[in-house]
């Protein structure tokens, strides 16, 4: 089997990348999806609030996914469901497995990585205690309630105030469970403000900042948890322990890009994001292999995933058409509060008129400035009333500005507090 572009993953990133590649003149495209349907995690995100940027209306997750699935079908883009990709080789051979075809290999002209991310699990947290039933990641509970039709428990404590945890606090409450408390290790929530108001405040669920679970009680089934306040080094403070009886503990403690296939490919990775390093075209350090969506870096809004994936699809098409140029790279560096930048390199010869650089900050900043320097010269100094780790930021760099600066080597993005 031979395809111009093989896309690994049929979630929001894979679907948008595929439609974009097709619209840019590529016919032989194949999407490989491990689930029994397209749409990825959107299928279980039944709440609304998706698509405000992309469609200018508020959709639920399944509705947002369906818009793209319809497009995939209308454009006759091929896809294989229930198909697990096992390996991607350096000469772009994709090995995959499913019930109909068995084990098979595809020769790809270009590959787009769109595998998404998964949840950090209990094992990563070092909470002492037995291993009773009743400890779930928030996303697992979401799948149980929204798709399978099971309630994970009746009395719930949630650790972590990421958006999935907040959404599940509301969802479990609406389905009749008692959500007793949401505990957050950090002094601020990692979730969107509107979720704190509409998922916790609306239902009188307390949010305890700077708190963590220090013990899970119960042997066969969770019977309760101990919460404790933490100090500035995130260590539990003795004497602040409080016992909560519950039968369920949900964990919403971070998302990790799913890069096992990428690691086998030996591309350069960014430790901060756990995603691959990419250039202005969202191409990894391996020529013709692109990445977009949560496998690249974890997003808060699907709209930005779509935007990124559209760019990846377009660039992969450019690569197949042989319109891709080799050139010199300018490095992007995030410092003074900017934890990382996507992309990490810019080749002005391949960039569009404007390139969007996305980044996250490491702390909460108020009345600060996002500053961009071309080598030593500051070119952007933009006031931001608030910057928070839970909200992805971006700056747009213009090609003409980059070309105007001769012999540009390094672009630095930083936060200035004055």
């Amino acid at each position, binding site marked *: 089997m031979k395809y111009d572009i093989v896309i690994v993953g049929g979630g929001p990133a894979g679907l948008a990348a595929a439609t974009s590649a097709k619209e840019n003149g590529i016919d032989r495209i194949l999407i490989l999806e491990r689930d*029994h*349907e397209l749409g990825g995690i959107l*299928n279980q995100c*039944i*709440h*609304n609030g998706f698509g405000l940027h992309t469609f200018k209306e*508020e*959709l*639920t*997750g*399944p*509705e947002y996914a*369906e818009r793209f699935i319809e497009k995939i079908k209308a454009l006759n883009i091929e896809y294989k469901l229930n198909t697990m990709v096992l390996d991607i080789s350096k000469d772009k051979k994709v090995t995959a497995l499913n019930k109909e075809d068995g084990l098979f290999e595809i020769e790809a002209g270009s590959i787009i990585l769109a595998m998404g991310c998964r949840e950090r699990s209990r094992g990563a947290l070092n909470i002492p205690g037995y291993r009773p039933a009743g400890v779930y990641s928030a996303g697992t509970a979401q799948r149980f*309630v*929204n*798709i*399978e*039709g099971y309630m994970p428990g009746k009395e719930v404590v949630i650790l972590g105030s990421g958006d999935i945890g907040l959404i599940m606090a509301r969802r479990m409450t*609406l*389905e009749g469970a008692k959500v007793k408390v949401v505990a957050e290790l950090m002094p601020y929530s990692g979730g*969107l*403000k*509107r979720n*704190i*108001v*509409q998922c916790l*405040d*609306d239902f009188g669920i307390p949010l305890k900042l700077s708190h963590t679970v220090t013990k899970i009680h119960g042997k066969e089934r969770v019977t309760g948890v101990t919460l404790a306040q933490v100090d500035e080094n995130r260590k539990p403070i003795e004497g602040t322990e409080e016992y909560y009886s519950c039968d369920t503990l949900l964990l919403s403690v971070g998302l990790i890009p799913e890069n096992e296939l990428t690691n086998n490919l030996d591309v350069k990775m960014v430790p901060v994001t756990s995603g691959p390093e990419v250039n202005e075209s969202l191409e990894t350090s391996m020529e013709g292999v692109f990445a977009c969506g949560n496998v690249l870096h974890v997003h808060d809004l699907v709209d930005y995933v779509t935007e990124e994936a559209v760019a990846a699809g377009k660039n992969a098409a450019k690569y197949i058409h042989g319109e891709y140029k080799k050139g010199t790279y300018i490095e992007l560096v995030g410092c003074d509060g900017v934890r990382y930048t996507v992309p990490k390199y810019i080749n002005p010869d391949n960039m569009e008129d404007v390139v969007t650089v996305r980044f996250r900050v490491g702390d909460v900043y108020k009345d600060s400035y996002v500053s961009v320097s071309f080598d030593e010269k500051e070119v952007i100094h933009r006031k931001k*009333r*608030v910057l*928070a780790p*839970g*909200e992805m930021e971006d700056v747009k760099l213009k090609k003409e500005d980059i070309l105007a600066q001769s012999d540009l080597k390094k672009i630095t993005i930083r936060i200035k507090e004055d």
Partner: protein
Amino acid sequence: MEKKDLICIGCPLGCMLSVEMNDGQVVKVEGNTCPKGDQYAKKECTNPTRIVTSSVMVDGGTIAMVSVKTESDIPKEKIAACMKELKGIKVSAPVHIGDVIIKGIADTDVNIIATKEVALK
């Protein structure tokens, strides 16, 4: 005079708003740093509404549940009644996006509609 505290959801800043009410009318909003806060406080204190999303059982479909939502926002105090009415509802596959699952939920004129395609098994 009645006082209410709320957090503005207009932007990530999350201003702490303090609202003074008289006779069910907002007379004063404090703590907001832009006009969005003022608008939000007035709506939230006089006529708070929400879109409610949930899922109901499907018979004979490729999955066990189909996601649903209120076609438009409903008064906040109707959320519990809405969820109560959704309990035990079962529909038959196939289901299409936009299919009306319940007409006029919780004594409103707002319908519950499906938000996902569920094919026959």
